[in-house]
């Protein structure tokens, strides 16, 4: 027990994640031995993807912080590429404008790395929001231009602006009396958002009766949502040691993450439905596309970031 107390918050957290993964892997392995079936196979490939994602996050958290910025930058890039590829709304002549959108990724992450808050906060919603329509106008085709003007900046907001807030957590200045720092906050929001997905799914499978919006996401039920919400709030209070929050503030963070995760999830579901796709891609095995994995994070990350910002830094 003494050894556990001597560990830093980050080490404890990594141990928790490792424990959850080992438990899940063993559980599914035994389940498969006893009662094989397609559902177990599906769960097993999912855990495999979790291992990959957890190792990336852990390596980034332990080794040099710059690695995390590059890793998140690549994640944004891949998500933006996936969204641009499935999008039917962008025109073929928008290719070169989409190229500008890709260039925004390193710039945004550079601002995050340097910790330049004002440029970081306005670069995409103000500068790129103007630059993309401007370059589109310069090309001179006005047919359907309004659509491209709205779609491309939205892609940037969903995949680059949002996810870069996870990276910026690592650039937040140190707070007195709080050891876990930005890495703790990062693990807190990522872990809780992903757990919230799992909680909602599990409660929905167990008790789900009343659908929330059947046309968008037939598996989302009120029972799943509320069960997920309560479990996530519980987990948030348990993991409070990773954050500078009081118990009440942790409760608020759990509530925010659960609600915004749900919002992100159904927004991406609706986009996929519009494009006639079930999974947005096949990048991570068993996990559908990258976008399917970060849908909840895309909304919960910026909301959580500004929640922390308002409570601790304002």
């Amino acid at each position, binding site marked *: 027990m003494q050894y556990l107390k001597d560990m830093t918050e980050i080490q404890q957290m990594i141990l928790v994640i490792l424990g959850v993964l080992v438990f899940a892997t063993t559980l599914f392995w035994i389940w498969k031995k006893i009662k094989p079936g397609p559902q177990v196979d599906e769960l097993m490939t999912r855990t495999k993807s979790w291992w990959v994602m957890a190792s990336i996050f852990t390596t980034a958290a332990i080794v040099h912080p710059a690695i995390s910025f590059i890793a998140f930058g690549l994640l944004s890039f891949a998500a933006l590429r996936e969204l641009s590829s499935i999008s039917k709304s962008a025109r*073929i002549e928008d290719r070169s404008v*989409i190229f500008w959108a890709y260039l925004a990724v390193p710039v945004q992450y550079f601002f995050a790395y340097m910790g330049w808050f004002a440029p970081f906060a306005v670069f995409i919603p103000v500068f790129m929001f103007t630059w993309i329509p401007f370059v589109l106008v310069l090309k001179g085709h006005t047919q359907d231009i309004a659509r491209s003007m709205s779609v491309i900046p939205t892609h940037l907001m969903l995949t680059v602006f949002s996810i870069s807030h996870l990276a910026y957590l690592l650039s937040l200045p140190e707070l007195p009396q709080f050891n876990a720092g930005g890495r703790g906050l990062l693990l807190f929001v990522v872990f809780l958002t992903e757990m919230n997905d799992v909680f909602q799914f599990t409660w929905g499978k167990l008790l789900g009766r009343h659908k929330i919006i059947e046309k968008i996401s037939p598996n989302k039920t009120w029972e799943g949502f509320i069960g997920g919400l309560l479990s996530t709030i519980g987990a948030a209070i348990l993991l409070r040691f990773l954050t500078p929050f009081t118990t009440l503030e942790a409760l608020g963070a759990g509530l925010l993450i659960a609600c915004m995760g749900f919002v992100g999830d159904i927004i991406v579901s609706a986009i996929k439905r519009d494009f006639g796709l079930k999974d947005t891609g096949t990048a991570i095995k068993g996990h559908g596309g990258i976008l399917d994995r970060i849908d909840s994070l895309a909304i919960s990350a910026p909301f959580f970031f500004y929640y922390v910002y308002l409570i601790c830094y304002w």
Partner: protein
Amino acid sequence: MPILLKLVGVRIRNQNAFQGQNQFIVVANHNSHIDTMALLASLPIRVLMKTHPVATANYFGKKKWLAFISNLFVNTVLIKQKDNALQLLEEKLKKGHSLILFPEGTRGKPGELQAFRSGIGVLLQAFPHIPFIPVWIEGTGKILPKGSFLPVPFEAEVKIGAATLATGTSVEAIVVEVQTTILDLRRSESL
């Protein structure tokens, strides 16, 4: 090169279709210059140096530097249409080398397969022991379309099918056979 392709968004499926194959003719649809690079990147190193993409001299032979570069990096055989083009290719096959052919003759419209030229049929008839490897390429036309010089990342897929010996007896029958194999590959989702 493979890392660059990955970054651009090209995914290669069923790469081990090349395993155990020493001589073959890769037959693919054609949308972009990316296609040749993607196919070369998917080849095992052991056959890479003995595999020649076939390109038309009308395009790549026009400028000396273009011809030079395509020879230097990709081992290309340039053929002139209506010339004794097939003879050049037959020589390569007789040496035990492999070919990459785009029988549509030019980069077509994305997602559509144009009618094949008959050259593939003539070659497969003359060398019945050499299998063809069907390939369906999707999405590269968006990365680098005809007439553009700026590659923009988009997701693309290269589906490699199993090596097949042509069974048709006439040139036309073989051409149709190859074409149907590629179209089947396009629909298959198992790869």
